[in-house]
């Protein structure tokens, strides 16, 4: 029982990290129809900014997160304006080519300026303590991550289901031409959605740094994982992404506990099974 609880809580934390990072990618892929393989690169940039802010500028954890999100969005604006806008509506493979190119560039430049070593983002005292939760100790940070994930899921749900922006966004996604005709400024909706997606990547990159450490190859190393999670959830669906992250987080964590030697087999076999059962992902939109 103790072991099951313990595994469950680890799976939950890992799943939530995946969720925070991937939900942004799910939005760009599902809503804007851009296969943005450079998504992880933005999470990585945020990690570097946060690490720089915390270690070299001496800012606190919260301030570092804030600065990282803002900084990453600022960096993404010219990229959206000059690169991404040209590939909205392009064939998927063209988008793949360009975003891979962008990822390569980000890696090369990061490597040059920040060096190839691991960067850490020091946690505040409160989060770095192991916390005794009765049946085991757990890093307070993990609970924080779970809370962050829940907050992101709730916030996004509210934004999309309960605000005027959400209405415009859903309308634009269902029928861009019609929304345009009805006076929705779809370009602006796209730009804001892109910024939100990048902001979420940034948040995920920083709070997830304990799981996925920040180094230049971050952007490539986890590209596949992110892509798989988004597809399994169904691009564009928040609950879908949440379910996918939790299920895959659970499969991964349990697999690694029960049969660590075959951890990857479990994960990818689960992916194949899910994709065959739900060809559009758990909650993907019909084409």
């Amino acid at each position, binding site marked *: 029982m103790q072991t099951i609880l313990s595994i469950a809580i680890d799976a939950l934390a890992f799943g939530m990290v995946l969720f925070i990072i991937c939900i942004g990618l799910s939005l760009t*892929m599902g809503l804007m129809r851009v*296969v943005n393989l450079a998504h992880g690169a933005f999470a990585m940039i945020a990690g570097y900014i946060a690490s720089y802010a915390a270690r070299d500028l001496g800012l606190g954890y919260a301030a570092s997160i804030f600065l990282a999100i803002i900084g990453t969005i600022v960096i993404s604006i010219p990229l959206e304006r000059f*690169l991404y806008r*040209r*590939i909205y509506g*392009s064939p*998927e*493979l*063209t988008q*793949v*080519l*360009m975003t*891979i*190119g*962008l*990822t*390569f*560039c*980000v*890696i*090369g*430049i990061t*490597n*040059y300026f920040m060096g190839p070593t691991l960067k850490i983002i020091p946690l505040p005292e409160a989060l770095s303590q192991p916390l005794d939760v009765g049946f085991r100790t757990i890093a307070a940070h993990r609970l924080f991550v779970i809370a962050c994930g829940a907050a992101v899921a709730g916030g996004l749900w509210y934004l999309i289901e309960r605000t005027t922006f959400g209405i415009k966004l859903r309308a634009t996604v269902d029928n861009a031409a019609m929304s345009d005709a009805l006076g929705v400024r779809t370009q602006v909706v796209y730009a804001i959605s892109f910024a939100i997606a990048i902001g979420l990547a940034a948040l995920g990159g920083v709070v997830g740094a304990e799981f996925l450490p920040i180094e230049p190859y971050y952007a490539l190393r986890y590209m*596949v994982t992110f*892509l*798989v999670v988004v*597809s*399994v959830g169904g*691009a564009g669906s928040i609950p879908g992404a949440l379910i996918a992250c939790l299920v895959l987080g659970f499969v991964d964590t349990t697999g690694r506990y029960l049969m660590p*030697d*075959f951890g*990857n*087999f479990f994960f*990818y*076999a689960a*992916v*194949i099974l899910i*994709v*065959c059962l739900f*060809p*559009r*992902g758990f909650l993907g939109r019909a*084409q």
Partner: protein
Amino acid sequence: MHIMAQAGTVSAMPDAKSHLWRDAAGIALISACGAAGYWLFPDNLALLTRIVAVALLVLSIDLVVGYCGVATLGQAALFGAGAYAAGIACVNGVTEPMTLIAIGAIAGAAAGLLMGGVMLRAHGLAQLVLSIAIVQLFHEAANKASAYTGGSDGLAGLMVSPLFGLFEFDLWGRTAYLMGLVLLLLVFIALKFVVASPFGMLCRGIKQDPVRIRAMGAFVFPVLLKMFVISGAVAGTGGALAAVSTQVVGLDSVSFELSANALVMLVLGGLGTLYGALIGTVIFMGFEHVVSAFNPFHWMTMVGALLIAVVLAAPGGLTSLVGKVAASRQGKP
């Protein structure tokens, strides 16, 4: 009506002939480039052989992506199946190079059958993810079966006997390169026939609109599966060539990275033309080689910049650029 049909057949002849001439010229050009590579870079034959092996992989991706519209990021599973099959056969005493290539092609085709059978159950993004999952499983399997594959240490100690009992696979790599080049040409010619066959036309149709193809009374799944098998044989040939020429097989040959790189080369060169696959491979690998020798520490940024530049300047790949230039020339009075 009878007269019209007559006129039709008469006019069909020069059309077919001009195609034949164009293909002959293309194949002559490829042979010339291959020979030029041999004479101009006699010291880089190992690299050139590697380009040939990867070109086979890229061609095989073109068959499924460019001609059938099935997106895959897992083609290295088929390349690796060919490489490991040839490698394991060689370690177990089958050392005749052409036999090894044939074994690789068969193993690749079998892996293609398996992969197609799974991947064709889904569409679009889900299909892409299936391909990734499959190549990762192959990778894991190769890592786990280290008794046969050497695992992460690689399968080393392939002693390939001389080609036709005459030509050794030596340090200078002449035999390997020339054998690879001839293989590439043969495969290329064979694929030219494949894509020009009714089957090839059917695939092009499926890529554009499977519903229309079904309304024509043709099944889609078996056609795509067949193409997967052909594609697997081509990729397996490439893998076997890599194994024979380098005498070692590593886990990288079944990696996601190799699959992704090869897809990037294809998109770079241009989808749906066999020439695009070759051009993309040569440009990407050549560029990578030159830049990484020139500055091994920062070539990644430059390769990335190249990819972005190509998307901005020639979204349809480099071959589309050639088409554009030709079109603008024709447009001039």
